[in-house]
């Protein structure tokens, strides 16, 4: 009565090297009909957890996107990394710091290789949201043969600073644990970041140098990257902060080895989770358009183009600030 397959989905595991990951495979269109068990030499899309999110991602948007990509012929795989979702394992107390330091890099790289080999894929495009984007960059650097592209949603390249010890401990504790505190922390980080950027004109001291170094490595391999950013409205002085803020996106663009290596889209009508219907649709549209242009393998007409108005719209071309040298400094 309980099965590991349903409709176009199959529950799968990756169990190499004693590390067992639970995941879901979204079969590409046509596979179920012709009874094939794999899509040899096809490119897959591999989803990574966003911080502690289970593999369905916030609002189950990961399920939605994987289903859509598969319907257009791209096999999609969503896995829980060790200690997350249904995969067994311990996680550190400060999961964000662990992720920012590349704690999941080794296992994500190894499992990407395992997936590509076991499924006979030509490679994968890694899909990461927020902290998942951080893991995707680290992992891509560790499996250059297998990772053919990156889709990064609201990536960040700074390290959240600990709140100053001059604050009362209970206030620091509250700021770490409440959602309101999370917003205040983000604002505080941006202020520090902006101040540092103005002072030095280079990467701010709280830049994630290790991550940026890995990104350079990925870019030097010619890997194309799609970045989707949620447009944030001007609240809490955001507009002023943004204007003075260090422009990581301009910086990373300057690291590109070819002019069209980056595609950066800013999306209206959604927020950081991209989970609302407008955000989901926009992410699907931009991503599928990008996939079809760079990795044309679709086996089916896309429902994106058939059933709905194709309404990819960009809020505006992203205007970048002053370019900075493509040289990762220590920031000190």
């Amino acid at each position: 009565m309980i099965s590991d397959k349903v409709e176009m989905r199959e529950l799968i595991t990756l169990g190499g090297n004693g590390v067992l990951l639970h995941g879901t495979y979204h079969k590409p269109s046509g596979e179920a009909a012709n009874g094939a068990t794999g899509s040899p030499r096809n490119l897959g899309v591999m989803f990574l957890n966003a911080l502690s999110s289970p593999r369905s991602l916030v609002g189950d948007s990961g399920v939605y996107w994987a289903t859509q990509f598969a319907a257009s012929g791209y096999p999609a795989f969503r896995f829980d990394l060790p200690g997350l979702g249904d995969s067994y394992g311990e996680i550190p107390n400060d999961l964000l710091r662990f992720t920012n330091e590349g704690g999941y890099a080794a296992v994500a790289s190894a499992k990407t290789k395992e997936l590509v080999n076991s499924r006979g894929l030509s490679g994968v495009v890694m899909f990461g949201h927020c902290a998942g984007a951080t893991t995707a960059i680290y992992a891509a650097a560790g499996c250059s043969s297998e990772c053919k592209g990156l889709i990064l949603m609201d990536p960040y390249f700074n390290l959240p600073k600990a709140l100053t010890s001059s604050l009362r401990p209970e206030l620091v504790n509250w700021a770490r644990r409440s959602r309101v505190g999370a917003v205040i922390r983000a604002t505080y980080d941006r202020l520090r970041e902006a101040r540092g950027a103005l002072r030095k004109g280079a990467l701010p001291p709280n830049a994630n140098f290790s991550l940026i170094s890995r990104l350079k490595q990925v870019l030097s391999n010619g890997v194309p990257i799609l970045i989707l950013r949620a447009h944030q409205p001007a609240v809490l002085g955001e507009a002023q902060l943004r204007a003075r803020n260090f422009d990581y996106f301009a910086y990373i663009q300057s690291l590109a080895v070819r002019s069209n290596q980056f595609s950066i889209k800013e999306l209206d009508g959604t927020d950081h989770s991209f989970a609302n219907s407008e955000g989901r649709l926009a992410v699907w549209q931009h991503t599928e358009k990008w996939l079809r242009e760079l990795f044309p393998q679709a086996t089916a007409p896309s429902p994106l183009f058939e059933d709905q108005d194709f309404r990819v719209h960009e809020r505006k071309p992203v205007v970048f600030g002053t370019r900075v040298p493509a040289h990762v400094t220590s920031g000190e």
Partner: protein
Amino acid sequence: MPEPQQTESFPAGILGERPGYFAVCGASLYTVLHQVENPVARILLVGPFTLERHTSYRAWLQWARFLAAKGIEVLRYDYRGVGESTGRFEDMTFESWADDVQCLSAWLRKRGEDVPLVLHGLEMGGVLAGRAFDAGVADALLLWSAPANANQVLRSTLQRWIGPQQLLKSPEERRPPSHYFQLLEHGESVEIEGYRWTGELWRQSLSFDLPAAMLQPNDPATSYKRPVRSVALGKNATPLVKGGVPGFEENKDFSWLFVPNHHWIASSVNVPLECS
């Protein structure tokens, strides 16, 4: 920072964690069976609702693993239209979710050895588990933060969602929770973190109650002549209830909650505290 423990090595007696799809009318439920060798009891975990699933996932999973390590076989699942289960959330009704509890309970009851069956519901899951128990399902019932009706869960979930939303909106776009309550009361849909709550769902929630015998000051154990325990969880139980901040509380120690509740389960269905 050290690498996390990555191997799947279960304590003795636990055969494994088996994910699967359980077919129900028009959909498939994502289930995970924490399979135990010679279980002393079985328990169906009826978990939190929509976005609360997301924040409480690891704590809920830890509870399942805790029970499995004590020799109790556990089945947990995602609601129809939520998480890994199939179906469109906006097409679901409370009755369809209630049917799922009945189906899964029946399946779990028939698995192998004749051992006691316990239902455990958390928040919305408490209402669903309570109603199934009222209908005669299971030998014992454990409720964590079960509200008087489903509407209370919808209200509190929406209020928790709205806080950070307000901070990210410009003043002219901000709306108080009452604005969304009014929309729902007028039959309109509201999208909450990717889940479309319909006016019909809201209407149903108003009359989808926890059985009266389970409400204070009644003594449900006397009414049902089967063990019932109800526990109200406070802010110290985040992220299991009341949201929480992802990334900081996943490793929280819940032994203060798990140990006494396991003791209650063991004593109420008369099974040993430790599996042999």
